[in-house]
């Protein structure tokens, strides 16, 4: 049997289980241990959700079990030492505090219980030293977004990376007065999401020119900003007036848009 989510239930998450939260509930230390041993070797990552960390910390302290591919979401703050211990068992550990922003609890529960959770962000952290935001999807898969991506269009207002918040049930990411849609972030950073998003479009021109047009807008590049290719030529390609684009021209366009030429049709 394949399992996606496990809930280490305690007093505060008991009602999640009672209200039909779609995760198997583990209600004792024994059940936690059994589940880890049973699903630990499962190749597909399992997402564990826990409020009380004690049963998991106890498991880690035993030092007998091998690290799994699993991901752990803690609903409450914990110490760095305990997080380090939990990293002995889990590949990803996300907990509120220390700069980690989590969705408000009511929104979080709805997102985690939904079929859409993989396409919504539930948590994140900003690393100013590396100039990246690490955003966690509803299955705790991380998406690393460089600050430069948010700045590529020279937006107004500019993002204030110190004022970070996930909002709208994980559909928006806010940096001060600047707000980005999760849809735009995933479209730019996840080819699989991009394919699914394209499939959802009601009417879409899938010609090469239309793909270049969408990609150019997504990257915030002006038509006149392609070295070696004139503005007029870009406009004609986008409008489909040039049916066969020369390989050299396509390579120049792809290089300016920072993608491999083969990736262009995915936009």
């Amino acid at each position, binding site marked *: 049997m394949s399992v996606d989510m496990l809930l280490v239930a305690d007093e505060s998450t008991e009602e999640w289980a009672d209200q039909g939260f779609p995760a198997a509930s583990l209600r004792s230390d024994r059940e936690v241990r059994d589940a880890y041993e049973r699903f630990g070797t499962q190749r597909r990552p399992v997402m564990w959700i826990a409020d009380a960390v004690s049963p998991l910390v106890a498991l880690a302290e035993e030092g007998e079990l091998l690290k799994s591919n699993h991901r752990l979401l803690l609903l409450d703050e914990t110490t760095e030492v305990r997080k380090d211990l939990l990293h002995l068992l889990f590949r990803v550990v996300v907990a509120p505090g220390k700069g980690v922003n989590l969705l408000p609890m009511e929104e979080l529960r*709805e*997102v985690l219980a*939904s079929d*859409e959770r993989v396409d*919504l962000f539930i948590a994140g952290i900003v690393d100013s030293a590396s100039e990246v935001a690490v955003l966690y999807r509803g299955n705790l898969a991380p998406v690393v977004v460089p600050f430069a991506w*948010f700045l590529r*269009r020279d*937006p*107004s*207002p500019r*993002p204030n990376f110190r004022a970070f918040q996930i909002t*709208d*049930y*994980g*559909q*928006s990411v806010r940096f001060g*007065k*600047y*707000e*980005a*849609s999760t*849809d*735009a*972030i995933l*479209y730019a950073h996840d080819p699989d999401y991009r394919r699914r*998003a394209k499939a*959802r*479009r*009601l009417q879409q021109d899938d010609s090469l020119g239309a793909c270049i*047009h*969408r990609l150019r*807008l*997504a990257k*915030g590049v*002006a038509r006149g900003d392609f070295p070696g290719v004139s503005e007029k030529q870009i*406009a004609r390609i986008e*409008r489909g007036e040039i049916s066969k684009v020369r390989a050299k021209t396509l390579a120049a366009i792809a290089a300016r848009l920072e993608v491999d030429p083969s990736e262009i049709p995915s936009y």
Partner: protein
Amino acid sequence: MPFALRLLDAWARLGWKAKIREDERNEEPHVSIIFKLWTWRLSLRTGEFLDSTPPPRNVPVELVEWIWSQRELLRARWDEKYPENVVFSKEDG
């Protein structure tokens, strides 16, 4: 700051929002209609929904009509945020 269209109280109280954020998927100009976990993109050129999922029928018709009645304001706000991809460009005729 994202542009949030002020909706009638009845819609707003239920949790509906209509926004143009600083970073939307930047293809056809649109307003994002948001309700809880779902977003519908409504074209600012044609008034039609851009995506088949989530199903457009799940947005109340009266809400869509009200948002569309504010299209001139929404188009102006989109053009301010996305001058490189305005709602109606000269090239589009």
